[in-house]
């Protein structure tokens, strides 16, 4: 992340200077910072709503049932997560919400799933294999109906907006499956996580005290 952050900002400033767009780049800092807070704050209400709903779903055993239904799939995909972990149910709920295009529900539930995965994580600062896989599934953006795009097409008077549903679904399925595939393959060759970070942090805190 350090390199990405450095790269994005340095390249922007240098390229902005060459292009004579340095003012735009500087203004983008302000507008970007403002936008981030707007995005975060717009999440508060809907986040609270779905976290509340999910808590009821968990207490009444609904999530457990859903987790059991999709167990054959998740057992293979998330083989590092214990089968009875609440993370499995949350992942399933978040995936369904995404598939139906319920972005408002999908983000809070997805965050909750991440929190559950974090509990199993041996190094709290780095992403576990399960987290990388879950993120890959989310970035591929599997969705049955691209509602926003269809809305735009209807807006400009496109003759048959729904004809793009099938090709879009095909493309998003390809991207989704390949994301899972790649996550699984790369995981084998990537340096495994070590638990040393936690220990060294604790040591730091101990030495401070």
């Amino acid at each position, binding site marked *: 992340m350090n390199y990405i952050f450095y790269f994005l900002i340095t390249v922007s400033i240098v390229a902005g200077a060459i292009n004579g767009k340095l003012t735009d780049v500087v203004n983008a800092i302000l507008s970007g910072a403002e936008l981030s807070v707007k995005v975060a704050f717009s999440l508060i209400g809907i986040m*609270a709503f779905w976290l509340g709903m999910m808590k*009821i779903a968990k207490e009444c*055993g609904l999530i457990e049932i859903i987790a059991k239904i999709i167990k054959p799939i998740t057992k293979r995909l998330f083989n590092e997560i214990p089968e009875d972990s609440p993370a499995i149910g949350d992942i399933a709920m978040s995936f369904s919400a995404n598939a139906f295009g319920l972005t408002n529900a999908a983000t809070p539930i997805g965050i909750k799933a991440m929190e559950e995965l974090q509990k199993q994580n041996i190094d709290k600062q780095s*992403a576990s294999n399960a987290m990388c896989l879950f993120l890959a599934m989310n*970035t591929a953006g599997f969705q049955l109906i691209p509602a926003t795009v269809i809305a735009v097409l209807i807006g400009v008077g496109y003759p048959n907006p729904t004809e793009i549903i099938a090709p879009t679904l095909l493309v998003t399925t390809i991207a989704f499956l390949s*994301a899972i595939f790649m996550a699984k393959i790369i995981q084998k060759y990537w340096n495994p996580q070590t638990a040393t970070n936690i220990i060294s942090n604790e040591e730091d805190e101990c030495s401070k005290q």
Partner: protein
Amino acid sequence: MFQTIMNNLSLWALPSIILLILTMGLVKKVPLYEVFTDGAKDGFKVAVNIIPYLVAIIVGISMFRACGIIEWIGQICAPMLAIFNVPADTIPIMIVRSLSGSAALGVFSDIANSTDVNSYAVKLAAIMVGSSETTFYVLAVYFGAVGISKLRYALLVGLLADIIGIVAAILVCNLMF
């Protein structure tokens, strides 16, 4: 037919999930109101927790978009992509869609409004925008919420999947339209 089924499915998905959760909670004698408010308490905390991560990513991306480099990449790629029947208009979408969902949608609306609605560019753009999720945003929000700063291979996989999505969109569009 398929269309009406799908429309109804999306319309009813959310209400039925909520009904199912609440009804099952009532049947199982879960104190609905208490449990709901208890769960909802974390909403504010999570949203505030992700602010630093969002600021880092969104500011970086806003600067990147403002500096004009996306236009450069577009100009360099245009002749190569023209071989595969890719209109130059759609190139900014490919670059921007992993960075910013609203920007990708903006470019798409631009194309849809400025060119002939029945053109190939509109179809390709629609498929590319509809089949993608903003990788960097998802990364910032999901990992930010739990305080992950070492991404390992997560971004790599996300971007590779985006590239595969773009290639698939071009292929599918070539075959179908």
